[in-house]
């Protein structure tokens, strides 16, 4: 149905008399034409009254078409009465002859609808739209579309239910009924009206998939307690959860309304719903942009830099960190609230990362700026690289959230190569370490290293050293290059960790060995894509 017909008459009359606004009336008559809802409030009110006044013989449907000559005719008739009948809004002052009953209502301020509590009244007006757009513009976000999400107070569902029962009581007398699912949803109608207005003001389209969210929370404190009766009727729907302030959440209320019997509902809740004194209030208007992800690879040239800030008891133990050195510039450019740094594995404070570097990804939460060209990203990369000699980044680029999975894959599955500077207690000659080069796929059993045992579970890890290449330095030193499975503890492989890593360099060389320096030479993950830097 796209417009009101004769069989809607009893519904329209009933709802109008009990204090329901024209748009809610249209909803309960299952009117699906979006344009109708967008008509100015006063016009709709007038049209509804015209509809009720008209005799059955007349073409009442025509009145609700967008182009409607008969109504125009009526309007013209009314303007003949005098120029000051039309006030500055273009709405008509009421003509005494039309309908004396309605005069009182029209003269005073618009009554708050007893079903939508003003959502489809005041909050569809240009003033509110301006208020929302002001908030959006002052928040200084970069966006190309928006999704408008609205949080309505739960008592709206209760009132909707009461109005529906009321309507069914009335039309039941005529042998008709209205299914709850056929009623146009309040939120849907609201969005029909407000999306085009917001879209116009903000100059971008509304898009359900948009990452930029404008959200409004409505509340109506005056009627907050209206839901409470449901708790005694359906106690199992309302379980107090830790995070929620009130047990009467929208979902819980809707569930209870489905369960409760009609008679019980009518016992506890007035039908028709009462007319409230006040409108809803818009509690908060908030903007939020979906997170963006920046990926790259980092090199670490310092032997004194932790991956993440090292703070014990509020005291910073070492200055700065890999994640801070990279992220702080991104935070500034993207104007984000916060960041989450993750990488494909990590290295100790005293270990350098050489070669192509280690893949990382940074999630920037609620960024104000989201569009960056490849040139701008290169510029950002340069800025980061100029700011510190402890780290360098490459292949800096924007990626999607799903791309992060590829990086974490690398942590578990891919190989790494290292270079270790090793010391031995007893003297070694070139021949003593040559055999290491021939060992392939060496299986290790590593118990959780003592140095991390306080914060990791005790376990035994089987890991493989794929290849080794030794470089003799002197009687007590040599350099060892190794290619290992992900997750191998290199330091423990060298010194043996009290014999808890077997075999180890010490046991292989039959001497005591220790590691003086360790470098990561490569992390063999081919993500993120290499850029021509």
């Amino acid at each position: 149905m796209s417009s009101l017909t004769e069989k809607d008459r009893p519904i329209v009359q009933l709802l109008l008399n009990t204090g329901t606004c024209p748009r809610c009336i249209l909803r309960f008559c299952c009117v699906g034409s979006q344009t109708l809802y967008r008509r100015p409030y006063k016009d709709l009110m007038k049209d509804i009254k015209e509809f009720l006044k008209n005799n059955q013989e007349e073409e009442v449907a025509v009145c609700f078409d967008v182009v409607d000559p008969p109504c125009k005719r009526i309007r013209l008739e009314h303007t003949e009465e005098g120029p000051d009948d039309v006030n500055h809004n273009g709405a008509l002052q009421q003509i005494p002859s039309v309908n004396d009953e309605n005069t009182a209502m029209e003269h005073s301020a618009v009554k708050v609808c007893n079903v939508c509590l003003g959502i489809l009244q005041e909050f569809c007006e240009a003033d509110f739209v301006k208020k929302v757009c002001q908030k959006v513009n002052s928040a200084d976000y970069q966006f190309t579309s928006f999704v408008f999400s609205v949080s309505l107070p739960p008592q709206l569902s209760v009132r909707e239910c009461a109005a529906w029962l009321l309507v069914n009581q009335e039309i039941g007398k005529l042998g008709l009924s209205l299914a709850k699912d056929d009623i146009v949803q309040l939120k849907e109608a609201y969005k029909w009206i407000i999306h085009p207005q917001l879209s116009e003001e903000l100059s971008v389209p509304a898009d359900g998939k948009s990452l930029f969210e404008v959200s409004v929370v409505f509340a109506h404190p005056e009627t907050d307690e209206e839901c409470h009766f449901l708790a005694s009727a359906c106690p199992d729907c309302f379980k107090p959860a830790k995070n929620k302030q009130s047990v009467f959440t929208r979902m819980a209320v809707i569930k209870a309304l489905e369960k409760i019997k009609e008679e019980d509902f009518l016992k506890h809740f007035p039908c028709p719903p009462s007319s409230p004194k006040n409108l809803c209030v818009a509690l908060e208007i908030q903007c939020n942009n979906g997170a963006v992800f920046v990926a790259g690879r980092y090199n670490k040239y310092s032997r004194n830099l932790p991956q993440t800030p090292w703070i014990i008891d509020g005291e910073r133990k070492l200055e700065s960190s890999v994640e801070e050195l990279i992220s702080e510039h991104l935070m500034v450019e993207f104007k984000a609230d916060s960041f989450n740094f993750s990488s494909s594995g990590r290295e100790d404070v005293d270990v350098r990362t050489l070669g192509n570097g280690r893949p990382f990804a940074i999630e920037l939460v609620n960024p104000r700026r989201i569009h960056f060209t490849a040139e701008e990203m290169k510029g950002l990369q340069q800025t980061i690289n100029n700011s510190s000699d402890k780290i360098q980044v490459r292949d800096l680029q924007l990626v999607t959230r799903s791309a992060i999975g590829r990086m974490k894959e690398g942590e578990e599955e891919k190989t790494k190569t290292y270079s270790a500077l090793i010391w031995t207690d007893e003297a070694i000659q070139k021949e003593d370490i040559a055999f290491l080069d021939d060992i392939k796929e060496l299986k290790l059993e590593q118990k959780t290293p003592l140095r991390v045992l306080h914060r990791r579970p005790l376990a035994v890890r089987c890991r493989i050293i794929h290849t080794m290449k030794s470089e003799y330095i002197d009687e007590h030193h040599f350099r060892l290059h190794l290619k290992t499975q992900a997750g191998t503890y290199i330091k423990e492989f060298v010194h043996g960790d009290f014999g808890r890593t077997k075999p180890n360099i010490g046991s292989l060389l039959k001497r005591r060995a220790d590691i003086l320096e360790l470098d990561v030479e490569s992390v063999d993950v081919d993500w993120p894509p290499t850029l021509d830097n």
Partner: protein
Amino acid sequence: RICVITLAEAHPLLQNGKTIKSINYQISANCSRLQNKVSGKSKRGAQFLTELAPLCRISSSDGEEYTIYSCIRGRLIEVNENILSNPAILQEKPSTEGYIAVVLPKFEESKSITQGLLTQKEYEEVLLKRLNSSS
């Protein structure tokens, strides 16, 4: 802070001429240190040790039996099973591969425990005093 329990330098077992006959982690009818199982980061299920809790008993070939005590309050994380199969390393490398056990004290007690221990220097002074008083 993780603690590794080892035989002290001056322990009789580390002096010349001693051979280890056997090492026994069964310290009472109900308790074997070998049955210690820990799970998770917080090492649940660990046997709790006080300073005087025995870790193991070691018998030497000359008939002596020595009880090795924990000396540290905390959860027993693991005992060194390598010394069961290869008792020689207990004497050859007592401070590394020949360790006895690993213990994790409670976080709050960590500092006070560390303060109650002797540094290498302080230990050497104790040994010196011992030597002087006995001669």
